[in-house]
């Protein structure tokens, strides 16, 4: 068993969930999402985020709009769609269930 691999597998699944959770609070610019994910230590390299955002957008969970910025070129602001909110609510439930299950086993 490879510890690093197991950890990467664990992170993989929750990363998608975390992106949606960050966006559920407010619409965000990709670099803001990265900042939060890095602080929470759920992302290692930034390159991982972009394919996920594009996939979620293609799946209809996210949409984006261009917004002018004072410091540079226009920025892409992502936000949850209605579908995205429903999807996230589902994930919230299953996360709670998972945590409960794991805790139950660990504290037994």
């Amino acid at each position, binding site marked *: 068993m490879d510890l690093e691999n197991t950890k990467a597998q664990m992170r993989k699944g929750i990363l998608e969930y975390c992106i949606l959770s960050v966006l559920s609070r407010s619409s965000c610019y990709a670099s803001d999402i990265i900042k939060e994910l890095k602080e929470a230590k759920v992302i290692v390299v930034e390159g991982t985020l972009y*394919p996920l955002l594009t996939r979620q957008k293609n799946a209809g969970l996210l949409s984006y709009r261009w917004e002018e910025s004072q410091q540079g070129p226009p920025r892409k602001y992502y936000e949850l769609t209605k579908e995205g909110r429903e999807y996230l609510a589902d994930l919230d439930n299953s996360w709670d269930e998972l945590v409960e299950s794991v805790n139950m086993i660990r504290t037994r």
Partner: protein
Amino acid sequence: MKITVSINLGGYSFNIDEDAYSDLKRYLKNLELHFAGEESSSEILSDIEARMSELFRGKLTTYKQVITIEDVHQVISVMGTPEDISANESTSNREKFASPGYHRMYRDPDHRIIGGICAGIAAYWNIEVWIVRLIFFCLAMMGVGVLIYFILYIVLPEAKTTAQKIEMKGEPVNIHNIKESVKKEFENVRKNMNL
């Protein structure tokens, strides 16, 4: 003194050292190959370029106006190599690149004398190209060689892309082989230009 190159990354123009430029270019090429199978891969790449542009801008001051090779390596380590990125992605995505090694016969434009037929056959069977040329020469003397050559010229496609050149040799087309192949080509060009 160093030569710098001027590039446009994410809508910003940067002056970048030549060695840094070649590393950056290779990195972006690798990412492009990595995301090649992905829907809207160009969108992913332009998002990544926009982010890299932002990180590079953070490295410039009034007293430091050129992107150095250290800056490039540092930004690459923040963004992650294709291997780092795929370590965090679903495995199905990674398997896509490990397609079985197709082995097809092509015309080899890199080692050709006429149409690259002999070189292509030699690469396919992994034998010395002069042996194939000798056989064709003998066939030509017997009167059928030219016709066979002509038919093969029509039938065999030319190996144009890097992936086709790898297929010609029967190696699996994966990111590692493509990288090696591109690197080799890059070195060849450099040698030819005497850089």
